[in-house]
């Protein structure tokens, strides 16, 4: 079913989502990928504050291409989420409510999703030009030196994603593939 939700994401909205739902997100989300995750993880290990609040927020695993003049952002599709698996459970425990990426997650991440009532969404990989059209504004807010891997605050409108792992631990990558397997 199609759902229209706002970000930051409330616990109630997160709980409504089922694996397989098509969801349009409007509001504020943040980007972070490999290098930013590594840095946030190190900050946590050293009791230093994170550059963004986790509670209720959605992180988009994405490093954009540069924006042409007059545009908020360049191409902006998801990167492979599993590379963030090492870091995601700590962030989920701090209240991170949504992650947008592509590809499978580890059991540890799934457990942390269920435990914290979060959601893992997939955006269509390799559709960066199309997805960029749902991003109205982009601003680097931390780790500027990381270039494309810096943390950005994005204002999005009807950003299209699909629920892959819901708060009950259902995983669309497993169920949908079985439905079309012909072996």
């Amino acid at each position, binding site marked *: 079913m199609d759902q229209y939700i706002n970000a930051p994401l409330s616990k109630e909205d997160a709980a409504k989502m089922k694996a*397989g739902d*098509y969801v349009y997100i409007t509001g504020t989300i943040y980007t972070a990928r490999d*290098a930013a995750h590594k840095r946030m993880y190190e900050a946590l290990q050293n009791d230093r504050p994170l550059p963004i609040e986790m509670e209720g927020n959605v992180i988009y695993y*994405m*490093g*954009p*291409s*540069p*924006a*042409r003049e007059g*545009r908020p952002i*360049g*191409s*902006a*599709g998801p*990167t*492979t989420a*599993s590379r963030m698996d090492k870091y995601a459970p700590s962030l989920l425990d701090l209240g991170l409510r949504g992650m947008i990426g*592509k*590809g*499978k997650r580890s059991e540890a991440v799934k457990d942390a999703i269920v435990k914290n009532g979060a959601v893992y969404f*997939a955006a*269509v*990989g*390799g*559709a*960066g*030009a*199309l997805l*960029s*059209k749902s991003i109205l504004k982009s601003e680097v807010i931390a780790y500027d030196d*990381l*270039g*494309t891997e810096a943390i950005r605050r994005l204002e999005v409108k009807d950003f*299209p994603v*699909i629920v*892959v792992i819901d708060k009950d631990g259902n995983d*669309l*990558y497993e*169920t*949908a*593939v*079985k*439905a*079309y*397997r*012909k*072996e």
Partner: protein
Amino acid sequence: MRTIQVSEVTQNIKEMCIEANHFLTKDMKNALEDACEKEEAPLGKQILCQLQENLNIAGEDMIPICQDTGMAVIFMEVGQEVHFEGGFLEDAIQEGVRKGYVEGFLRKSVVKDPLIRENTKDNTPAVIHYEMVPGDQVKITVAPKGFGSENMSRVFMLKPADGIEGVKNAILTAVKDAGPNACPPMVVGVGVGGTFEKCALMAKKALTRPVDQHSSVPYVKEMEEELLAEINKTGIGPGGLGGTTTALAVNINTYPTHIAGLPVAVNICCHVNRHSVRVL
């Protein structure tokens, strides 16, 4: 002997980096269109439609098809009658990549050292493969390679006794393991034979063969067709979210090998299987 100025190489490579990241070749576009018509899963069909819309936006608004504009892989087929003038060829190629990525608003995804990981900020260096060929022309292929799919690629050093079934199993294993991570529908490039590095290079080069062209070797063509059908039965589907389109093509290249070995490399590419080819 024919003289080519290296500045001509730089200019062409710059343009080709930009072109490859905004426009797919006709064969790829056709394959995606066909897949959209044939896909059985409703969500899969919707995703394939979005990929076509994405291609239209990329071309019209000059936004890269994918934000991962790749590490530039360049095949140089250099005629032995050619003489380069005006500088060192390799420098000219790297300069073309630098200009293409900086002036073309492409993402800089290359780090200088694999462990220290400091971004070079201009996407150089490219990975360059040279081949000497007869004649006085230079054929350049620029193939930017994204790493979502590159990370799912594999080399298998099989035993001769594993035979054709072993090769098929290796390819299917790599594709199944790649699943949603490689942004399906994929193009599967395969190298069979040669040595450890030769099969990997063949697999990479196989990705630059048009997806509507089969191997000229009859048994290899049969294998390509059979494997494509098998892969599309896995259920992985567009975006890995279920469906009947998991791959658009399987391109296999072969080479003589050693009596003791059967190397197989599987280089997986996403649906943004980019390349630009020019002959100077």
